């Protein structure tokens, strides 16, 4: 754990508690999702974020309400970090009409326009052009906003990644590219899918400043994201962060996790983002005795309430099947 040398991160007791609380909310939410998946209440794909919490929490610290987020199919963590109500997200997982996407999207398509959270894109690298476009609209309309675009390292092999990196650098678009490098694209290890495993180096090709950050260190992520966001807001064009991270669970609930050693997973868990931050912040006196217990109790209550809300919420009536394919016309024919 690195002490924040960067003046942009003000590590007070309140801030440390907030970071830990945000990461804990995601962890316990994800665990509840796994449980309810096994119980059959959540279906389809479910990609858990456990192990990567520091990325979403750290980056979101650097964003304002005006900024936008485009994420992937492993986006429940980002949605919670962004401030979407947990009940709405859980209801979406349950496919209920009270879900943030009215149940139509499910776990991979969490949307909340009032939080400027533009999904939930489940095509690898498919969200990158969208983020560039949101940023282009901001630029053309003279708004000093940032669009943060999260994606995995697998996206770096896709054409849309390179097309968007070029376009964004060429047009100096205010995009914060956040590559969450968890070392495996589903079951394909980085070294068997990339000729150059240094993902941040890809940004250099486009003349885009990039930083490689320890994605298990929430403070380092926050500091790097603040530096990048400041530069973007200052009109310097896009920035790229490669966050080195690891997912502790399988790719999805369908994944038997045969492609990596159990010892490797266990080794990463010993320096996971929550345990590491807790130990460091306790040792340095940033968090106090009882803080962890208080956070856990509050989060447990919030998760229980979210599950209860999702459980009690009604499904959309089947008569509404064809709703929201196109925008309703004011004048019906």
């Amino acid at each position, binding site marked *: 754990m690195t002490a924040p040398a960067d003046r942009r991160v003000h590590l007070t007791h309140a801030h440390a508690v907030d970071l830990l609380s945000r990461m804990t909310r995601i962890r316990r939410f994800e665990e509840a999702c796994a449980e309810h998946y096994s119980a059959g209440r959540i279906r389809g794909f479910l990609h858990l974020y456990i192990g990567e919490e520091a990325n979403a929490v750290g980056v979101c610290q650097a964003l304002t309400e005006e900024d936008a987020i485009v994420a992937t199919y492993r986006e429940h963590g980002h949605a919670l970090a962004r401030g979407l109500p947990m009940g709405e997200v859980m209801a979406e997982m349950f496919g209920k009409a009270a879900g943030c996407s009215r149940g139509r999207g499910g776990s991979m398509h969490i949307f909340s326009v009032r939080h400027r959270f533009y999904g939930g894109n489940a095509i690898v690298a498919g969200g990158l052009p969208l983020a*560039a476009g949101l940023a282009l609209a901001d630029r053309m309309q003279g708004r000093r906003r940032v669009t943060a675009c999260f994606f995995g390292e697998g996206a770096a092999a896709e054409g849309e990644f390179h097309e968007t990196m070029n376009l964004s650098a060429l047009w100096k678009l205010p995009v914060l590219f956040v590559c969450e490098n968890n070392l495996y694209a589903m079951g394909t290890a980085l070294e068997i899918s990339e000729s150059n495993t240094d993902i941040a180096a890809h940004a250099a090709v486009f003349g885009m400043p990039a930083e490689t950050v320890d994605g298990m260190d929430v403070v380092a992520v926050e500091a790097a994201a603040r530096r990048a966001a400041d530069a973007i807001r200052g009109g310097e064009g896009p920035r790229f962060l490669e966050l080195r991270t690891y997912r502790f669970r399988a790719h999805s609930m369908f994944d038997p996790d045969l492609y990596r050693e159990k010892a490797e997973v266990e080794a990463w868990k010993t320096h996971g983002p929550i345990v590491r931050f807790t130990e460091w912040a306790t040792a340095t006196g940033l968090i106090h005795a009882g803080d962890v217990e208080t956070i856990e109790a509050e989060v447990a209550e919030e998760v229980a309430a979210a599950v209860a809300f999702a459980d009690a919420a009604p499904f959309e009536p089947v008569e509404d099947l064809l709703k929201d394919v196109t925008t309703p016309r004011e004048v019906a024919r």
Partner: protein
Amino acid sequence: MTTSRRITYREAVRQALREALASDERVFLMGEDVGAYGGAYACSLGLVDEFGTERVRNTPLAESGFTGAGIGAALGGMRPIVEIMTVNFALLALDQIVNTAATLRHMSGGQVSVPLVIRMATGAGRQLAAQHSHSLENWFAHVPGIRVVSPSTIPDARGMLKSALADPDPVIIMEHAMLYNEEGELEDAEDHAVDLDRAAVRRPGEQATIVTYSAGVKKALEAAGRLADEGISAEVIDLRSLRPLDDETVMASVRRTHRAVIVDEGWRTGSLAAEVATRIHEQAFYDLDAPVERVCTAEVPIPYPRHLEQAALPQPEGIVAAVKRTLRR
């Protein structure tokens, strides 16, 4: 008093682009070579001088990237017109069109609309061989969440763009490359928006209905003219909108003529012609006096030599023969 001028389809498209850029600051045009080059088919020639490089925006050769950027810009409050040089290259942007533009509204539970217009050239007939001659209108018309229109006339070449920009959802305008040099009358009407939902009867007739769209309209009209010389009265319907299809106009005609021939420059298998024929069978079967006929492109990648290319495409002779078959003549 309305005045009218004789202009080309290309000029009508350009006029529509100019009017859109001039009337709404949110509108911008983005695509390969739309700037100094003036567009591969010269539709945007000169517009960069009038509106600048921000609003007539040349893109890198990255169809998926700039189409997706158009979707994002639409979400961000702009009204982008994305020009994809041809339908052939639009295949590189299918991910963004099908997986993003068409789905965002639905999978967000109705939170967003994507007011994006995508224009592209389509079709064969210029000896451009197999990779530059596709007619894949049906691929896009297959997808719920997008609207697909195909102007065959000068007024539609102008008016469909205005109507498309007023539509809150993604609209794909497929402009047939063989039509750009076609000339016709254009009225300088103030409000030139057209109804995107309706097919149009381009020639009234009594004994058979020819249903077609895009460049097929010209061929169908030529066939109808020849049939008239032989005393056969054929109606020609221009679908105009390929999604949604205007069943009402087609069925009203077929119920009156009792015969239908569908002309489609797509390949027969899985074609729009198949869709229209099926709808006729579903909705007007007992009004038919003969099986529905189809005149489609031969099932071959479009060949380079002119005689083979023309042989592959629907032609007036084939349309005349098909209409006569429905009349057992």
